[in-house]
């Protein structure tokens, strides 16, 4: 398994990812991991073409774990995109070993009580608990919009917002 980067982003594959992150982490395989997205026929058609030529897989959490555990996957530089923090937590609990975790975008869900931690990341109290659990597993957890941004610790950002 060579998972060079785990991104938590509910926009999945989009401009920031294809324009900046794919090149910065030199990935050759994008894996989108979320059970609902993996069952959505429309997303399964749209996301690979959004990746603009990079090999793309749309997996359930279990499929993503199975794939990354295969010996052959160590020849790849995999970037996993988890839709929600809960997906990222399941991946790490299932044995995924990413070199780093970055929180990209989390659009607010209407009807929930959330705080905007950055311009594009909404966090509920439940999310904050999950992010802390995730950070507790030992992989650096940052929030960088662009790869060149300084490594802002995401848990510090949560604390600053009283979460």
């Amino acid at each position, binding site marked *: 398994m060579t998972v060079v980067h785990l991104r938590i982003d*509910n*926009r*999945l*594959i*989009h*401009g920031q990812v*294809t*324009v900046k992150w794919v090149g910065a982490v030199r990935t050759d395989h994008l894996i989108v991991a979320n059970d609902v997205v993996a069952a959505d026929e*429309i*997303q399964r*058609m*749209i*996301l690979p*073409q*959004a*990746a*603009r030529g990079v090999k793309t897989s749309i997996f359930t959490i279990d499929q993503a774990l199975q794939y990354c555990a295969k010996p052959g996957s160590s020849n790849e530089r995999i970037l996993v995109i988890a839709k929600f923090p809960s997906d990222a937590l399941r991946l790490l609990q299932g044995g995924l070993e990413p070199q780093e975790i970055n929180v990209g*975008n989390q*659009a*607010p*869900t209407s009807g929930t009580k959330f705080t*905007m931690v950055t*311009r*594009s990341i*909404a966090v509920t109290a439940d999310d904050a608990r999950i992010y802390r659990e995730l950070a507790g597993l030992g992989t650096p957890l940052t929030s960088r919009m662009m790869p060149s941004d300084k490594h802002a610790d995401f848990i510090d950002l949560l604390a600053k917002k009283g979460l």
Partner: protein
Amino acid sequence: MSEAADDVEVPVVFVGHAEFPEGVRSAVEMILGPQRNLSTVQLGPAGDPADCARQIGQALDQMRVNAQVGGLILADLQGGSPSNAAAAVFLERPFVRVVAGLSLPMALEILADRQGRTAEELAGVAVTAGRESVTDVSRALTAAASKERSDGSRA
């Protein structure tokens, strides 16, 4: 899609990141004047892509886009969230065409001459206009200047 009637004007939606769609609209209107049957859908940093797809659908409905008239969505960046949302709209409404790479030359070419053209034809016009409008102006001027010099020396 069948032949469009001469008086039919295919509705157009600009979709993109932040204020880009409204910016393109204001630039188009500075050149061509106020436009009918044109909407914009903008996705901000905290915007939800699913919501973006719904807004595109609403914009099409408001302009009475249907299988007879068709519709054209011009998205800013292929693979970006707004373009992905437009792709989802296309899969639900195949009579709508989606082209990514929205630029001012592309928008002008489409909006200056929409009458009597189908959405499919307009999509082709958009792609050609987008591709052909990118020019290295300095190089073109340098080439023109050197041609002038050599023409002058021959005379």
